[in-house]
């Protein structure tokens, strides 16, 4: 268990994997799983000018 860096909501590991991005269920901030053991999340990287498909 960790918490959203923006709103402090508790975030459970569930079936998340390292590197996965997902929205915080409360504040909607895009988060990234930066580590599984220990479980850590941080704000997802911001979109850069050359990002795309």
């Amino acid at each position, binding site marked *: 268990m960790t918490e959203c860096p923006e709103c402090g909501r508790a975030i459970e590991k569930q079936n998340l994997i*390292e590197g*996965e*991005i997902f929205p915080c269920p409360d504040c909607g901030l895009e988060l990234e799983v930066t580590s599984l053991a220990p479980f850590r999340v941080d704000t997802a990287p911001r979109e850069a000018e*050359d*990002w*795309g*498909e």
Partner: protein
Amino acid sequence: MSETFTLGLFYTVIRPEEKWILEAAANRGIPVERLHDEAVTFPLVRNGFHADLVLNRSVSHSRSMYALRFFEHYGVPTVNAYDVVALCGDKVLTSLRLSEAGVPTPETVVALTPEAALKALDEVGYPAVLKPPVGSWGRLMAKVDDREEAEQIIEHKTALGSSMHSIFYVQEYVPKPERDLRVLVVGDEVVAAMYRFSKEWRTNAARGATTEPLVPSPELSELALRASEAVGGGVLAVDLMESPEGLVVHEVNHTPEFKALSGATGVDVASKIVDYAAEVARR
């Protein structure tokens, strides 16, 4: 099915697409080496990774370009190939190649200075579309309705100061229905297609377009395959518009997102991509 190769996944973030790719590889017994584009280093002599083939899922065009060139240098095949990404990542080069291959594409004029951009817009006629040569998700594109608006937009682009905004890619505005078509080609197969609907002229899923599955007509499939072949083939999303003169290809995307496409069509795109990567690795 058990495979004897290790799949390298070069990625920026794990979106649903990358998670599905990892699952598809796991279901096939294919070991995956994760190569995070923020962490990997590239010496001139291969060192420190084991992948036999690298599947590029980085969202950064510049990171993809250098990384794929390094993998090529190491003798590691990639999906897609460096040349394909170099071409598809640059709208100018894509338009040239589509034109050379006789694939119908909107009228396009490129200008290298702000003054020439105004001339290019006059040549194409208003309304026209102004796009950065590199970029995606419909970002920083502008529909230009008249000369006055053109002058203002070009002034703003010039003020941005980046090299990306000092080359002007001007395209005719295609009066299409409120939708475009996306066709996903994997190797020599059309694996899925959908309509993207938007009230806005840009129909990118990233901009909130809604989607509907599409059963591709023989004409659509043939055109998508020709566009894919023209740029070198691989895993490619071909975007088309219905112009009054018929279908035109306006983009070929080299690292396609497919969450919306899989959702709309039910096609397991991730498995198709992993199977194709395995096929390329066996060559």
